[in-house]
């Protein structure tokens, strides 16, 4: 509730031409439009621009159809600049929508009776004219419009949509690439599917072949048809695959494919490259009651750069003479190696780009802002690996300046391994180049229960592939034994990315409940429950959830 004063009383059908005359339409920026508000009403205009109205307390009282006419948004921003509130009997559609989108307070009060100078108490459901003592009911806005206002306007609301990844709007039915892969991949994916169905997530799940069996039968662990399928889905859930060293891989090829020079390539690495899935997102949260928790309260999110660094695949073994000559010429530090024969050493290139470093840093900060996280820590070894890690740190520092409300620091990869174990609660969001990110994500995962809980998202601009980080565990395949929670949480991440945040929150709440109760535990948690029982326990917890339940989050 707030008390405001009527500073201008208007009649019906006040048009946008009166509020913001057309001759000022070339002035567009919200900071500049207020100077032209009600420009043709010379008396009110001079009171307004002369600072003669009560700041933040002033109300424009209008009759019916306020703001009719043009779609010009300046008619809203010019009033907003003077911190005015509009109380009207009714408002024209476009003006009202613009007001909601920009955040100008507009109260629709169909029977309002008041005069110039009256004080009004504006409540959620009524307006009280303090000067006359009479009350008037307000007309509520539709819920969907309230959601835009609560987000702080349409810019923030749309940005939120974009950050949830779905440049596509929410759909009534999604298309999810279903890539269970090898070994236990099928079992954990089935468990996640059971949960997705139970939450009422409407989707079709076209199956994509991927993994060791594809390699053996076709000589390609990621067949072309699966790549085509991924071009036409909203997101994908990936189970697990088996991979073996080059020679073993060649040996297991079907007889007709042997000796054709086929080389095994990791399908997940290829997906990252083909679809530019540059973010590897790994949330690591210690759900209360998990016997594998290293410490209660751990809630870390790792952003690992996924496409470059030492994993770029630019490697030499043996090292060609040409290369050693060039290196010797350009770096005096190469002197100890320059006379070695090519097969006496090997070189893997660490390649980090400005673009790659900047975009992963941005992703980390944007995530931190959206989820109200407090701190981002960059992980590097810039004091020694000066060129590449120096560049990475420099880009992270530059991006940090755009997020003044978020604390930024950096740590060496070796030191942070120690600190994470010593004081894991001191950390929040971590961002790192590929290799360091790989290392700390496994470290963090083990602090919150290990492989059975570690989920990840490989996220690009157009596609995201979610997976449990564990492997195919051939020795447990078909035994209905392993913990499906990592895959269920991967499905939860996928829903978040698609913008289905309520469903995602509900799944997380159900998983947290099952862990907290500790009745159903798989072998890794010290229990004996099969995979399917764990899935059913989560489904039961979902059925019992209070509607609209939101799990606790850091910062909220």
């Amino acid at each position, binding site marked *: 509730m707030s008390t405001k004063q009527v500073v201008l009383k208007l009649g*019906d*059908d006040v*048009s946008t*031409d*009166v509020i913001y*005359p*057309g*001759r000022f*339409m*070339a*002035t*567009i*920026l919200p900071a500049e439009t207020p100077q032209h508000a009600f420009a*043709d009403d010379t008396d009110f205009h001079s009171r307004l621009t002369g600072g003669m109205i009560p700041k933040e307390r002033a109300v424009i009282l209008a009759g*019916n*159809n306020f703001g*009719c*006419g*043009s*779609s*010009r*948004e*300046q008619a809203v921003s010019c009033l907003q600049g003077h911190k005015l509130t509009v109380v009207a009997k009714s408002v*024209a*559609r*476009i003006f009202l*929508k*613009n007001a909601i*989108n*920009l955040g100008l307070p507009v109260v629709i009060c169909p029977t309002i009776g008041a005069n110039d100078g009256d004080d009004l108490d504006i409540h959620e459901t009524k307006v009280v004219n303090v000067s006359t003592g009479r009350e008037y009911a307000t007309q509520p806005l*539709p*819920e*969907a*419009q309230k*959601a*835009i206002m609560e987000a702080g*306007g*349409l*810019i923030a*609301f*749309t*940005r939120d*949509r*974009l950050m949830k990844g779905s*440049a*596509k*709007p*929410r759909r*009534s*039915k999604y298309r999810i690439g279903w890539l269970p892969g090898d070994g236990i991949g099928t079992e954990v994916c089935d468990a996640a599917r059971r949960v997705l169905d139970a939450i009422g997530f409407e989707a079709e799940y076209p199956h994509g072949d991927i993994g060791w069996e594809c390699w053996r039968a076709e000589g390609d662990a990621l067949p072309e048809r699966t790549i085509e399928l991924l071009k036409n889905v909203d997101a994908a859930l990936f189970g697990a695959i088996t991979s073996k060293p080059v020679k073993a891989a060649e040996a297991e090829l079907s007889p007709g494919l042997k000796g054709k020079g086929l080389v095994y390539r990791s399908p997940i690495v290829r997906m990252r490259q083909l679809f530019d899935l540059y973010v590897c997102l790994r949330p690591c949260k210690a759900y209360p009651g998990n016997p594998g928790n290293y410490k209660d309260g751990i809630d870390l999110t790792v952003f690992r750069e996924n496409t470059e660094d030492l994993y770029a695949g630019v490697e030499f073994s043996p090292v060609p003479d040409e290369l050693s000559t060039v290196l010797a010429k350009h770096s005096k530090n190469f002197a100890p190696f320059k006379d070695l024969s090519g097969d006496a050493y090997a070189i893997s290139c660490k390649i980090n780009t400005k673009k790659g470093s900047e*975009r992963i*840093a*941005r*992703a*980390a*900060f*944007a995530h931190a*802002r959206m989820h109200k996280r407090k701190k981002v820590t960059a992980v590097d070894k810039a004091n020694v690996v000066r060129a590449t890690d120096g560049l990475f740190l420099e880009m992270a520092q530059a991006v940090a300046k755009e*997020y003044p409300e978020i604390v930024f620091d950096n740590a060496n990869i070796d030191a942070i391994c120690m600190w994470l174990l010593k004081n894991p609660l001191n950390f929040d969001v971590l961002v790192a180049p590929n290799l360091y990110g790989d290392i700390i994500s496994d470290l963090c995962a083990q602090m919150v229960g290990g492989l059975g809980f570690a989920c990840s998202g490989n996220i690009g*601009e157009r596609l995201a592939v979610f997976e449990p980080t564990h492997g195919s565990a051939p020795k447990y395949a078909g035994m209905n034994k392993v913990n499906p929670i990592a895959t269920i949480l991967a499905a939860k991440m996928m829903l978040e990315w698609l913008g289905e945040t309520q469903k995602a929150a509900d799944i997380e709440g159900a998983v947290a409940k099952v862990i907290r109760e500790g009745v159903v535990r798989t072998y890794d948690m010290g229990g004996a429950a099969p995979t399917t029982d764990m899935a059913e326990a989560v489904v039961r917890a979902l059925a019992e959830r209070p509607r609209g339940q939101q799990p606790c989050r850091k910062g909220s």
Partner: protein
Amino acid sequence: MGMTLAEKILARASGRSSVKPGDVVEPQVDLAMSHENAALVINQFHEIWKGTGKEARVWDPERIAIIFDHRVPAESAKTATNQKTVREFVKAKGIQKFHDIRGDRGGICHQVLAESGYVRPGYVVAGTDSHTTTHGAFGAFAWGIGATEMASVWALGAALAVEVPSTIKVTVRGSFLDYVSPKDLILFIIKLLTAEGANFKALEFHGEAIRAMPTSGRMVLCNMAAEAGATVGLVPPDEETTAYLHDTAKVSERIDLLSPDADAVYDRTIEIDLSELTFQVSCPHSVDAVKCVGDIEGKAIHQIVLGSCTNGRLDDIAVAAGILRGKRVADGVRMLVFPASAKVYQEAMERGYLGILAKAGAVVMNPGCGPCLGVHQGALGDGEVALSTTNRNFKGRMGNPNSEVYLCSPAVAAASAITGVITMPGRKV
């Protein structure tokens, strides 16, 4: 339960089997149109992307149209700079449906969209202009939105939180009397509904008179549906729509038509018989202050404006030229003619209409919005009166709060130009 045309289009675009009034949907947008205010859209678009960590990307450059019309050629350095910003953006994003200030393909956005065949039946068309309703003439759900909402559409490809409007059905029977036109009809409808009567609602036009009406006339009705507050005005598309798109807009693809369900539910129904409809004039300062010309005949005027997205098409200019042929614009009256597009201009020139008008004393200006919104070209002096074929007469609309604007059809405008007072067409003068 059956659906109205608006409901059908929104259901399809939102991936639903059905919608009803009051539902809130997120329709995918088939065409997103802006004019000079694209400069503000661009500003808001960059605001959205700022801090997302992503490159600012339009969802589909093929589905964005930008046409300069409100202030062409630029009246100020500020406008010229805004236009320059837009040109740079258009180039950077690869937007092809861009119509710069040109004598071969420029013009008013709504006319350019229509004659370029950018709009098809069943489309969802969002425009940062309140008269985007014009495209309902093709059976499209076409509505006006603000610049920030457009920035959101550019980013997402969908409009967020769109409320499904209920629909008012307007059935029009009979045929027009001589010189009476769709403009008189829509002014009459606005008088019946009032300026707020269709706020948050759709108008759907039916009846033999609508079926017999060319696309240009249907565009007049849908264009001014906005003046009754309507979210959209819609005409169920038919063979006339197909013929226009194939013959005038030179579209080669097949045109799929759609119509409302026979059991659609309407908010209310209005029936009008054209045999009783005479010339209408909308009086200052509200579009719904509509009177019969007979009740206001003799009112002295200083400026006649023929043009705009409402009445600047070839048939409008033809009617005016027919009336003014061999006649003279009265002394003390300025008549300004603004063809709605470069194409209209060229064709009016080839057919000799522009010559007739110029010989009568009219000033033929370049295609564009002209003085309609009071930015440049043809401002009014204190106490002056304009009679205009445009769509708005709000206080200060033509750039001067101490002037008056009356709205009328091209025929009334031309007849009044000769006498210098509001005059009924067809009278011997």
